[in-house]
């Protein structure tokens, strides 16, 4: 596909659509739009122009213009992605949704929130909480990521084990299609099988099939009582084995079930500049439970705590008030920043395997790390089998790093697929994993994706060069 450059005439037309003030051309201002949280230089690319629309109508006009002129359009939320999904790898127009940052409605009767895409996930959570509701989507980047980006990547996060990933809370979307048409898919109905489930075709499509301009989020009653357990273990195996045990023997589905390995604990300790309890343990397991009564939560944490102690837990720390809970979560949530202190450049993966296979996956990663002498600290959303394995570059030169990284990733992905897993649990494919996806998915599945893309976006203008190579 050959795309046309953004000419001064096109810039003029963009300005007439969104206003002069909302078109950015200065390279120093565009620089931040040319990368996401992927730390490697190869996943950066400057846009030719940045536009900041404020409504669906403007987006529609921009997309129609891009279709006429055959110019790539890359939609972008907060830029907190980890797969270069919002990076304009082919230049063109960068469509930033940052000005569409209003929460439009909290519908207390139907338990829905309707928002624009540029609202931070943290604000969605806080607004829901203030009204006595829970918005259960909770990626680690919630403080900075946009809800629109969460929809585009079908973000997972900490509470997926009980409440599922972002898509499970999405019942409707207003979308600007690649031909510029504005359409509302779904809405506030909890049941709706009228036609294909197009809402969930858009969810996780990484901005390749449409631009989300309005999101209908399902809220839940806030369960008022929450407790967190922090359990250090002297072996990774024991730590992971407790995960299914909690659900099978304990009969409890925790809201969060997190795992940290020894290297991640040490990194958190270094980053937070504070001593963590049992920080020389082989692993931490963090369990969060919620409930409607204090007694129920108490019974649950006693059950889980005893199971942990009977199965190799070194100690069980209980936090049932917000300040102690914050202290526990700080250690887990600082993972990305903490690793950056050890190695400014790294490659964070988000492989996923069936829960029972986590020990084997971790063992395999460990073996691969030793074989190639790469440090790979791991944390996991253990309750849903989603492992963040992060390859640290440390002081390797560019060439060696890429060589080692490619080999290590390939070996890890092979193991993951052998264990019945997949290469991305929540970050998505973007530009970064396109090659890997093509190697590991069944060709028929790749063909389905291509067909859908071509049918909806024949000129391939919307977030091109992502997920699959269509041509």
């Amino acid at each position, binding site marked *: 596909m050959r795309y046309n450059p953004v000419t001064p005439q096109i810039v003029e037309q963009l300005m007439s659509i969104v206003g002069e003030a909302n078109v950015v051309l200065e390279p120093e201002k565009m620089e931040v739009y040319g990368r996401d949280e992927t730390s490697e230089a190869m996943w950066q690319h400057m846009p030719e122009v940045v536009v900041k629309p404020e409504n669906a109508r403007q987006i529609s006009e921009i997309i129609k213009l891009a279709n006429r002129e055959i110019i790539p359009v890359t939609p972008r939320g907060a830029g907190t992605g980890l797969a270069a999904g919002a990076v304009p790898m082919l230049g063109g127009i960068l469509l930033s949704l940052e000005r569409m940052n209003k929460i439009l409605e909290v519908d207390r009767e139907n338990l829905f929130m309707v928002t624009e895409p540029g609202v931070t996930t943290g604000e969605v959570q806080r607004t829901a909480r203030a009204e006595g509701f829970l918005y259960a989507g909770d990626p680690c980047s919630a403080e900075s990521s946009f809800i629109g980006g969460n929809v585009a990547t079908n973000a997972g996060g900490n509470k997926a084990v009980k409440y599922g990933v972002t898509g499970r809370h999405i019942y409707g979307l207003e979308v600007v299609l690649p031909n510029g048409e504005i359409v509302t898919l779904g809405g506030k109905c909890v049941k709706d099988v009228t036609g294909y489930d197009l809402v969930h075709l858009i969810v996780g499509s990484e901005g390749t099939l449409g631009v989300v301009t309005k999101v209908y989020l399902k809220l839940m009653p806030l369960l008022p009582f929450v407790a967190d357990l922090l359990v250090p273990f002297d072996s990774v195996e024991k730590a992971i084995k407790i995960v299914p045990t909690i659900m099978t023997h304990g009969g409890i589905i925790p809201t969060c079930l997190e795992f940290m390995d020894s290297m991640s604990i040490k990194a958190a300790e270094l980053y937070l500049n504070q001593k963590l309890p049992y920080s020389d343990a082989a692993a931490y397991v963090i369990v969060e439970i919620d409930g409607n009564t204090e007694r129920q939560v108490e019974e649950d944490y*006693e059950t889980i705590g*005893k199971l942990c102690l009977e199965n190799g837990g070194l*100690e*069980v*720390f*209980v936090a049932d*008030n917000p*300040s102690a809970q914050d202290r526990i979560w700080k250690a887990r949530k600082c993972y990305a920043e903490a690793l950056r202190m050890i190695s400014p450049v790294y490659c964070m993966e988000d492989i996923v395997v069936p829960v029972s296979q986590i020990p084997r996956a971790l063992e395999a990663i460990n073996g691969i790390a030793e074989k190639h002498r790469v440090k790979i600290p791991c944390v996991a959303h253990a309750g849903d089998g989603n492992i963040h394995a992060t390859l640290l570059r440390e002081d390797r030169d560019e060439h060696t790093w890429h060589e080692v990284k490619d080999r290590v990733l390939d070996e890890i992905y092979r193991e993951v697929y052998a264990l019945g897993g997949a290469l991305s649990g929540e970050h998505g494919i973007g530009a970064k994993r396109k090659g890997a996806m093509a190697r590991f998915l069944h060709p028929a599945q790749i063909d389905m994706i291509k067909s859908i893309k071509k049918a909806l976006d024949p000129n391939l203008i919307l977030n091109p060069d992502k997920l699959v190579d269509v041509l």
Partner: protein
Amino acid sequence: MRIVVLVKQVPGTDNVKMDPETGTMIRTARGNVINPLDENALEEAMRLKQAMEGVTVTAVSMGPPMAIKAVKEAIAMGADGGVLLSDRALAGSDTIATARALASAIKQLGDVDLILCGERATDGETGQTGPMVASMLDVPVQTYVQKLTVEDGSMIVERIVEGGFEKVKVKLPALVTVVKGINQPGFPTLAGKLRAKEVPVPVWGPAELGVAPEEVGLKGSPTRVVKIFSPKLSRETIMHQYKPGGRAVEELIQFLAGREII
């Protein structure tokens, strides 16, 4: 050595809501926490308990019956026991009356070597109760303490003051109010939680404290709240609605230039 830690139950940060009709505060048991600085005080007591032989730690709190949770939490975090001061006669206490009840409790416990508490509580933010307790017990006091070592019946503290630190040596018994930087509070353990369920927490009123009911509560309080109001702070405000391409920002710059700010 016997340490008493004064703990106050306070609402968690996003758990205070105003009743828009009456202007009064709505508090619920949900999300109440131990005042964060009191957690630091408790942690410091635990640190001393681990470092020295024969240290016992008692948590003392005053508040409504639900404040028993704060005492239980302190026991779960490692305190040996605790007392809750709760009685109708104690309601409405200001800082003086609160300090009187707390000081009486400490006298009842007897032979206390060190009293620790947070420098202030996040709800009232007065920071007065600690020093007042020391005054009533006639013991030395050090406030804003960020470091503490105990040796041979004395302690050396480092306190934060404007622009620096002061190092002071103090003979025990004494009272210390601590700041956040003194330590990192730990977590209660499951064993601690289970123990806290078993350990009885006596609830004391004026009789147990050995004070006359009129010395505490509202009657024993020298101060009275006469009015609660939402402040009228108004200045004459020049208001502008911002529109892209509009004049609001320019007007602001003119305004500041007129006042010779820029």
